[in-house]
């Protein structure tokens, strides 16, 4: 797959993809959401497939970052959050503008510890 973020060295993007997958798994396993989806006509029987995709994705993430992701997930539902107008959208603390230019590094909010995603 040419667009698979795992082929790029950008670890922040991999963490975003991981969170997207985790949200998808959570929705699929949530009885209320799954019932709503099935009522609309959407089959939801491929949960094993996306769990497999999650495992494959984590193999491309550096262990220390994966640990950080898991650690933050113990405190927050949203682990990776976008930075909007130089604010962490998890806790709304100011994010240093210089962080945006730290290429190939994963930046966390100094206030809440969430992983930051610069859109």
């Amino acid at each position, binding site marked *: *797959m040419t*667009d*698979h*973020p795992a082929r*790029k060295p950008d670890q922040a*993007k991999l963490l*975003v*993809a991981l*969170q*997207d*997958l985790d*949200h*998808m798994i959570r929705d*699929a396993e949530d009885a209320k*959401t799954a019932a*709503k989806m099935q009522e*609309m*006509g*959407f*089959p*939801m*029987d*491929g*949960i094993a*497939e*996306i769990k497999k*995709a999650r495992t494959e994705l984590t193999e491309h993430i550096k262990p220390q970052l994966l640990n950080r992701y898991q650690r933050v997930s113990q405190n927050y539902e*949203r682990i*990776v*959050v*976008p930075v*909007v107008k130089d604010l962490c*959208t998890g806790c709304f603390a100011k994010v240093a503008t210089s962080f945006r230019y730290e290429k190939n590094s994963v930046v966390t909010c100094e206030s809440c510890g969430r992983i930051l*995603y610069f*859109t």
Partner: protein
Amino acid sequence: MMTSQELASYFRESLCIFDLKAASKREALAEMVDVVCSEHDIKDRGLILEMLLNRESLGSTAIGKGVAFPHGRTLAVRDLSIAFARSVRGVDFDSTDKKPTHAFFLIIAPPQDRDNVYLQVLGRVVDLIKDDASRDRVVGASGYAELKTIIEGQGL
């Protein structure tokens, strides 16, 4: 409850493709994601495409009668966005009725959607298309103005 006017407000001309070129599921998704990224100046196209392909692995969003609703949430988008596409020749989208898919409603939203507008929008679009007459009109729409008139006029 979301009105048909509110639903119609999500449809933009620049996010509608009336002559989808794609011949496969992946190509169809990529073509639609391209217009969304272009319209909203989104840099991480790959993240959106990956999320949509994963969502299709969970279960096909082509629920028969020539229509598909690829959808999902990703941090790569800032706001809820709907793209519409129509393929005259049809695309094999793993539809539940095994038939080619001709009309696509792509719905993507950020995870930070407190009011769950995403699910409301998805539900409204599915409701619209479940009606045979509306579906036929949407699939046969000649352009954006007609499509928007159909959606606005549903009185949903």
